[in-house]
């Protein structure tokens, strides 16, 4: 019998094991206190759901786990205490390991992140019998599933999400998409493969939400007149300042902790002929708009001539992407992991705007913030965007 983290309230999502009252091998009666959990300011004692012998403790004291995840197993009283789940009994999926191509060689334009490490593949094989059974039923190779459980373990939900994402197609008798003889078939480039991995992993990792703001650039347009400073430089500067005010947007998620980055490094997505790359403007908050502008121009030129060094594409804490030049009104960008937010800039052009009771032509753009709702709430994201908007619409010329 599985013992799960109980749902202690409608809005309670997880609980921390404070203490195991029983040890592995102890006999327990139904309703006898089994463990103690803590959620917010409430400590709760949880009774055993049934009688038997506590055969396995899955969540140790101090661990925080989502509600309904299995924290222990109770066996029948005369059953031999089960051995801890070993890796030997894992059925290796039909496709086996070769599918997890490890890309250690980073191409000149490769995006950071993505390649799984050996350590990861070991922890992900430590799964419960329930999860293994579920995986078998759905014909899923567990080694292909990204674990979000304790220590990277694959949970029931991970398997179900994997099934729902339709990635199981390739596991069993993969059918090549129908194509006629004269279709051109081409292997993905290393960069394309990295981008593909990165995008899919991001969608699976973050709870993507977007908020959209219209920003009047008339004042910025007047200031940059006669100078060669891009709109993007002003946007990066406004973003860097706003990140200082809202550090949660300049953060990463690491397991169940939030890492607030003290430095502000803004990545700028640059479209290439065959993909995209995100060079990073370091310490964007400490530079003025002119310096940022020079930095962006230089990075973009080097990106297009494939001369970027790996350091120049690493370490970004926030990304700005710019679909506007091709005419897009707005984009709904995917977060650049392990960051938690990304700003998309739509096309900047004259549009009719109501000022007072008159319709006047103003230079405007639509800015879209994609953010990770796991750690950023809508109100915070909107306040951040309101601050960016305010800074751009009332630009303080002394900061140029």
């Amino acid at each position, binding site marked *: 019998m599985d013992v799960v983290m109980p749902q*202690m*309230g*409608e*809005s*309670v999502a997880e609980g*921390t094991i*404070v*203490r195991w009252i029983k040890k592995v091998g102890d006999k327990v009666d139904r*309703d006898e*206190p089994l463990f*103690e959990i*803590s*959620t*917010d*300011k*409430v*400590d*709760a*004692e949880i*009774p055993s759901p049934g009688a038997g012998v506590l055969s396995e403790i899955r969540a140790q004291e*101090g661990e925080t786990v989502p509600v309904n995840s299995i924290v222990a197993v109770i066996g029948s009283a005369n059953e031999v205490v089960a051995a801890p789940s070993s890796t030997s009994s894992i059925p290796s999926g039909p496709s086996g390991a070769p599918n997890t191509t490890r890309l250690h060689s980073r191409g000149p334009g490769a995006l950071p992140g993505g390649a799984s490490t050996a350590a990861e593949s070991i922890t992900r094989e430590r799964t419960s019998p329930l999860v293994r059974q579920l995986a078998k039923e759905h014909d899923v190779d567990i080694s292909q599933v990204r674990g979000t459980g304790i220590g990277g373990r694959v949970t029931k939900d991970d398997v179900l999400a994997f099934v729902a994402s339709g990635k199981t197609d390739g596991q069993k008798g993969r059918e090549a998409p129908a194509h006629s003889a004269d279709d051109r078939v081409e292997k993905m480039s290393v960069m394309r493969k990295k981008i593909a991995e990165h995008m899919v992993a991001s969608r699976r990792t973050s709870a993507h939400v977007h908020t959209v703001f219209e920003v009047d650039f008339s004042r910025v347009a007047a200031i940059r007149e006669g100078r060669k400073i891009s709109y993007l430089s002003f946007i990066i500067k406004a973003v860097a300042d706003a990140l200082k005010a809202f550090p949660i947007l300049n953060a990463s998620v690491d397991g169940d902790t939030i890492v607030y980055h003290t430095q502000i490094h803004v990545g700028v997505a640059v479209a290439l002929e065959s993909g995209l790359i995100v060079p990073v403007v370091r310490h964007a908050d400490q530079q003025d708009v002119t310096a940022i502008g020079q930095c962006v121009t230089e990075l973009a030129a080097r990106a297009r001539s494939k001369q970027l060094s790996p350091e120049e594409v690493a370490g970004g804490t926030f990304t700005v992407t710019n679909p506007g030049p091709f005419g897009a009104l707005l984009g709904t960008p995917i977060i650049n992991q392990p960051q938690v937010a990304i700003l998309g800039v739509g096309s900047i052009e004259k549009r009719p705007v109501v000022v007072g009771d008159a319709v006047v032509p103003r230079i405007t753009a639509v800015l879209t913030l994609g953010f990770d709702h796991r750690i950023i709430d809508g109100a915070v994201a909107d306040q951040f965007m309101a601050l960016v908007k305010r800074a751009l619409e009332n630009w303080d010329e002394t900061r140029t």
Partner: protein
Amino acid sequence: MRPAPDVRRLGVIAYPDALALQKQLVDDRREGRVGDVLLLVEHPHVLTLGVRGDGGRSHILATDETLTSRGVAVYETGRGGDITYHGPGQVVGYPIIDLKPDRCDVHRYIRDLEEVLIRVAADYGLVAERVQGLTGVWVRGEKLAAIGVRIARWITSHGFALNVTTDLNYFNLIVPCGIADRGVTSLSHLLGREVNRAEVEDRLIQRFTEVFS
């Protein structure tokens, strides 16, 4: 409708005695020997630790000698939350309530306790509020009442501590509830006058019955 709780106003009682009494009442409540009970007490100077991590021991700022010389004892408890201070001038409430069957939600229970305290503050013309992510009741950014709760099979114990005429200097011994950047306040401090303790207890009983019935 739930019947109004049996209120017991016990006056000054030592912390370990209150702990033992609560334990007894939780058992009695589970066995159905008593109905819902609300204990209202006052403790001599004491620091109590929660169960999480080191219980907040690292949030004691004073040395053992200082604590001893000021007559402050330290106890470990079974409640949630971090360290807190209890002492003269504070109304401490311990509801022993069976949340089954209709109130089985720990967040709701906390919100309900906060609601009781917010209404009592309003009775004194004070606008008290909840602060997102921080349990307790706050007035202008300072903590008026602390909350720390234990629930065993949906029967509650521990509860809240409302500062009425508390000597706030004692909070300097600790980082209250592990929250370093927020102050502590009392009804008396906010109103700039002495506040009658019995009257506060009367308000608490009325508001508690209102929210929990």
